[in-house]
């Protein structure tokens, strides 16, 4: 490689480094924000899910239209990904998990609701019908968006357009660990709700004593369990969905920050190596020139 080429390459690598470092800083700020939102949203989601879990000891839940299990012929898949890439294996992990989950069904038996462009692109390219596609640009999420989506899914489930609604998202464990997760949103069932609560409640620390969902034998219920469930069930679907979206957001920014940190570290290393190489070649050229001059002089002297 010629000296000039190396110099250009060093400059390019340094530019990459600057960009990666800037993106790392931006992601770090967004990560902190989304993480704290996801964490403050947890007590609410946990409490709501826990009430449902306890109430569902009664037979009324089974009879609720949102909890009716039937043979699965048509599936709705909600996939929560980011709009932008550069987040390591985050999106591909979620997409792979989702693709695996719907693999047993025919392409036209699956309807995709995509929140975030990466998921939409993947499934649209493979011929799945995409019913709704949302942009996942903003850092803040209004629960109203999720309420609208969950109402739509709830209606479609009740009038038997879909027999099952699945959600694919990445569950936020820590800054370095996000787990692609598939959860069944509808029909509402106790094991799914319990698993969601387990995801929400951390393994140790402040809320960890609440991990076990005990059912309470005798509740007195006002006005009656039917009405409580009628109000609680649709709300829970919205809350679950909202909660999953918050987790997905926190995961996205964490994954991006880590990816950008790796990129900026690596580009720094590459720039360093290239500078070494550059100096070495330059020194070699100088040495050669000096020896040529000396050799030339000696030739003249004799």
């Amino acid at each position, binding site marked *: 490689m010629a000296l000039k080429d190396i110099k250009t390459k060093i400059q390019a690598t340094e530019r990459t480094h600057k960009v990666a470092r800037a993106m790392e800083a931006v992601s770090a700020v967004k990560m902190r924000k989304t993480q704290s939102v996801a964490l403050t949203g947890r007590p609410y989601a946990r*409490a709501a899910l826990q009430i449902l879990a306890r109430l569902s000891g009664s037979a009324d839940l089974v009879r609720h239209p949102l909890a009716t299990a039937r043979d699965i012929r048509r599936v709705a898949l909600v996939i929560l990904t980011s709009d932008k890439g550069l987040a390591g294996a985050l999106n591909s992990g979620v997409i792979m998990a989702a693709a695996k989950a719907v693999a047993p069904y025919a392409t036209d038996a699956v309807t995709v609701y995509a929140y975030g462009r990466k998921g939409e692109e993947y499934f649209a390219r493979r011929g799945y019908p995409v019913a709704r596609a949302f942009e996942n640009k903003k850092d803040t999420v209004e629960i109203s968006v999720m309420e609208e989506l969950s109402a739509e899914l709830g209606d479609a489930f009740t009038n038997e357009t879909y027999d099952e609604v699945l959600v694919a998202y990445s569950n936020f464990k820590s800054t370095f660990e996000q787990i692609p997760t598939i959860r069944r949103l509808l029909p509402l069932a106790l094991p799914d709700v319990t698993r969601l609560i387990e995801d929400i409640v951390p393994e140790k620390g402040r809320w960890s004593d609440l991990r076990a969902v005990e059912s309470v034998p005798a509740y007195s219920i006002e*006005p009656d369990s039917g009405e409580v469930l009628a109000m609680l069930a649709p709300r829970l679907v919205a809350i679950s969905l909202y909660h999953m979206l918050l987790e997905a957001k926190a995961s996205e920014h964490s994954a991006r920050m880590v990816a950008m940190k790796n990129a900026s570290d690596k580009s720094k290393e590459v720039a360093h190596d290239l500078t070494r190489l550059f100096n070495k070649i330059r020194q070699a050229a100088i040495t050669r020139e000096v020896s040529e001059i000396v050799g030339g002089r000696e030739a003249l002297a004799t």
Partner: protein
Amino acid sequence: MKTFHLTVARVGENLFDGEALSASLPGSEGVFEILAGHEAFVSLLAKGEMHVRAANEEMFHFEISADGIAEVSRNQATVLL
């Protein structure tokens, strides 16, 4: 006086989380009061205001705008607005 654990939460916001002496809430069937040792109980909430007397005698007031739900079991009360 005995206390119970009370959590009052709204989506994305934790309003109250701690020990309380009493809480009065507008239930769908009329106003009710929760004290320590209340029976296992679930109620829908009507529009109105809820009042909480915390363990340190401090008073808190929260507006209930639309449907909320209150749950009490094992000396733990959860109110979702």
